[in-house]
């Protein structure tokens, strides 16, 4: 049983980290533990349980800004935003279903540290794009702040965005300030049935390159399309494109998008309610949630290269897959519990990067979870880590082996 340290506030955090640094101890940072199985397995001397650092500290809807302590549940933030018809526009995915855990357990700090996003990534960006300011404790046990609470700010290095996706390896975020946006009044999804991967890729590219302002674009081969409740077992592949905005605009763009897509094949659509449910499924990788023993990978790549990469990995391993981000994001489910790292990385061949998402502890220990870096980037990553955390106190080895 590991020691658990439960700080009450930022000063407690600073003291705990300073003590750990002095005593050459290593800490695992935990909000509510919903993403503990992601990343490389960490070996630490104690857990730093941040769950007491919770609560929204500032929310000004007319300024589009919200501040919260790092371990505030996402669900609490989303509820507060919903009351004012706003949202976290980066649509942070909920890893609960995929990792065989409860839904809605994530914290805002965890969402930022993991650099989460969702299908709307292609239009508005990810967690990093909404980071405005941060207070944090470095691995030296020093409290520092960076950024601010305004959207336009170039005062000093953009450390808030850097901390997004850093998996708690650089600093312990204690307070986070985010840009929030109005929630779209209406949404609809246009469906294209039966397109091949490459045909669907072209269709998504045409839609993204139109003035229809598509806010999400996914393509599912017949399997897993048949495993998505909102699609009612179509028996063929489904390409889905989401439109959001004021009703007049959504209606107009829907007609326009259907005209654009007609040459690609048979069309259908989802209404607002079904749309919302469908994109949540895509966001949370629901199609691969039910066979929890199988390994899941995620690949970020150039959209037009995705069909070739998917076909290559499928040929080598028999993996199932689907595309989000108009092809830029590929989710792959391996047929078994082996990581198949070699097949994934050899096929990808540097044309993007692959992350092992769901795998047994043994598999995560034997494979590289994140894409290995070339020597120059590896060295600068190590120097960056040391500039925040010279003693390697914070989540050591969560992204890369340290030694």
């Amino acid at each position, binding site marked *: 049983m590991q020691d658990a340290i439960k700080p009450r506030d930022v000063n407690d955090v600073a003291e705990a980290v300073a003590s750990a640094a002095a005593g050459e101890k290593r800490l695992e940072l935990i909000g509510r533990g919903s993403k503990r199985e992601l990343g490389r397995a960490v070996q630490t001397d104690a857990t730093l349980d941040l769950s007491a650092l919770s609560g929204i500290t500032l929310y000004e809807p*007319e300024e*589009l800004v919200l501040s919260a302590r790092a371990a505030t549940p996402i669900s609490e933030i989303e509820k507060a935003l919903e009351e004012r018809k706003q949202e976290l526009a980066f649509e942070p995915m909920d890893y609960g279903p995929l990792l065989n855990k409860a839904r809605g357990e994530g914290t805002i700090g965890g969402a930022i540290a993991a650099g989460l996003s969702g299908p709307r990534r292609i239009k508005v960006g990810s967690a990093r794009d909404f980071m405005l300011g941060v207070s944090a404790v470095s691995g030296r046990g020093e409290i*520092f702040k960076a950024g601010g609470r305004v959207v*336009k700010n170039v*005062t000093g*290095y*953009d450390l808030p965005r850097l901390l997004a996706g850093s998996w708690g390896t650089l600093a312990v975020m204690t307070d986070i300030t985010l840009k929030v946006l109005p929630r779209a009044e209406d949404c609809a999804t246009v469906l294209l049935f039966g397109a091949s991967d490459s045909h669907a890729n072209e269709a998504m590219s045409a839609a993204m390159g139109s003035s229809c302002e598509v806010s999400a674009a996914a393509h599912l081969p017949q399997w897993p399309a048949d495993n998505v409740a909102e699609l009612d077992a179509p028996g063929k592949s489904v390409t889905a494109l989401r439109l959001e905005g004021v009703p007049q605009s959504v209606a107009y763009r829907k007609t326009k998008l259907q005209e654009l897509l007609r040459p690609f094949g048979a069309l259908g659509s989802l209404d607002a309610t079904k749309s919302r449910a469908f994109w949540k499924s895509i966001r949370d990788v629901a199609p691969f949630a039910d066979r929890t023993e199988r390994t899941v990978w995620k690949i970020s790549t150039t959209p037009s290269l995705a069909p070739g990469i998917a076909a290559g990995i499928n040929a080598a391993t028999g993996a199932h897959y689907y595309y989000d981000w108009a092809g830029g994001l590929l989710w792959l489910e391996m047929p078994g519990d082996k990581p198949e790292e070699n097949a994934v990385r050899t096929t990808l061949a540097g044309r993007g990067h692959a992350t092992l998402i769901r795998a047994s502890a043994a598999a995560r220990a034997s494979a590289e979870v994140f894409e290995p870096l070339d020597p120059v*980037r590896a060295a600068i990553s190590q120097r960056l880590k040391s500039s925040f955390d010279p003693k390697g106190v914070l989540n050591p080895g969560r992204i890369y082996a340290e030694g």
Partner: protein
Amino acid sequence: MVAMPAPDTSVLSRREAIVSALREIVPGEGVIANDVAMRPYESDGLTAYRQLPMVVVLPETTEQVSKILSYCYENSIKVVPRGAGTSLSGGALPLADGVLLGMGKFNKVLEIDYPNRAVVAQPGVTNLGITKAVEGSGFYYAPDPSSQIACTIGGNVAENSGGVHCLKYGLTTNNVLGVEMVLMTGEIVRFGGKHLDAEGYDFLSLIIGSEGLLGVVTEVTVRILKKPETARALLVGFPTSEAAGDCVAKIIGAGIIPGGMEMMDKPAIHAAEAFVHAGYPLDVEALLIVELDGPEAECNHLIESVSAIAKGCGAVTLRASTSEEERLKFWAGRKAAFPAVGRISPDYYCMDGTIPRAKLPLVLSRMRELSEKYGLLVANVFHAGDGNLHPLILYDANKEGELERAENFGSDILRLCVEVGGVLTGEHGVGVEKRDLMPSMFNKTDLDQQLRVKCAFDDKGLLNPGKVFPELHRCAEMGRMHVHGGKTAFPDLPRF
């Protein structure tokens, strides 16, 4: 005036050898060492500061940049990178003992990739040059700083440039997908590409807005967007700036994010109208330009919604553009606001703080007090949607002490922005200009952490020194941790 680091005499004494070594790397006219020819490089857009560099070098290839930096690293020579030199904060101000590295010859668009909606460009391509390269197919590059005709994409990366459309479409950091850059050691490295998420740490976040202190960017990949089908603008006059500010808050509160939303105060309105005759009302205290873009049906719907909100906030004049000419005319005055102010005053000093929007009336009234205190007039243009304020302080550099008064007035304004919860600079950068004000926003620990990041990239402190950070420290000192073999007050981990 802000003082620059004292020149290193040992470097200056080696000048001849340095110039010949650079000529070995960049043959022909790519190395400029005589004073007359170096004159155009002595300052950037912050013309109050001038300094001839030791030598100017204009490389044409990434390999040359790599060799130059590697040589300078080995020989401990400072380097100041420069794009088009349009910085308003002195980011490209040369150093007497430094190499001025001009990236102007990197001026080619390398690849236009419509299927993936990306453009790969060399850093010396102008911001507008990217849009020009793709507009024939109906695409554009969204961030549009006012200097877009001249400023380069490399400079935009260095400064994280914004523009009037960034509330809806984001800043440079939200629109750049990847860079190739050369580190001070000469190592060439790539971050990002045409994919979206970062592999490992999000280095792009750090590099964008780093003001040329972390590396020299040699290639940039940006995302491009399809042009909206239509755009319409509203021109709305208010009897008070409070009413205009209230209107902005209500528009956003109603869930509307306009493509652009700009405010001008009375002195700025009058200067602009006298210059371009845009048809601005002259009897109002504040003027709002609200631009809505998207499909026509959406624009028309939103124009009605915004008009209703504006009337509810006490608008005294309200005009909606009915043609593209009229829309552009509404903008003409705003876009020409700086030169317009330049016509009514021998010199002006442009500030760039950002404030939480709700504080605008307070900041404007405090600014009027400061204006009286310093005996200098100020005109305000304001990116109202995102709180970025550009006060233009009018002064005459030929009058004894006026520049200094203008600088002090400006510093007071920026401290005021920080005091109300804002920041020192929204889009122009810290550079030389605001360097010594950094402690009003950040304490020593905050700044030390930033300096340590700098050390991770540039351990000898050779890239653009004297900018951004008020004090320079040796990286070895910065890295030290005051820990004494584990024998501290907390030998064990505390348990709460």
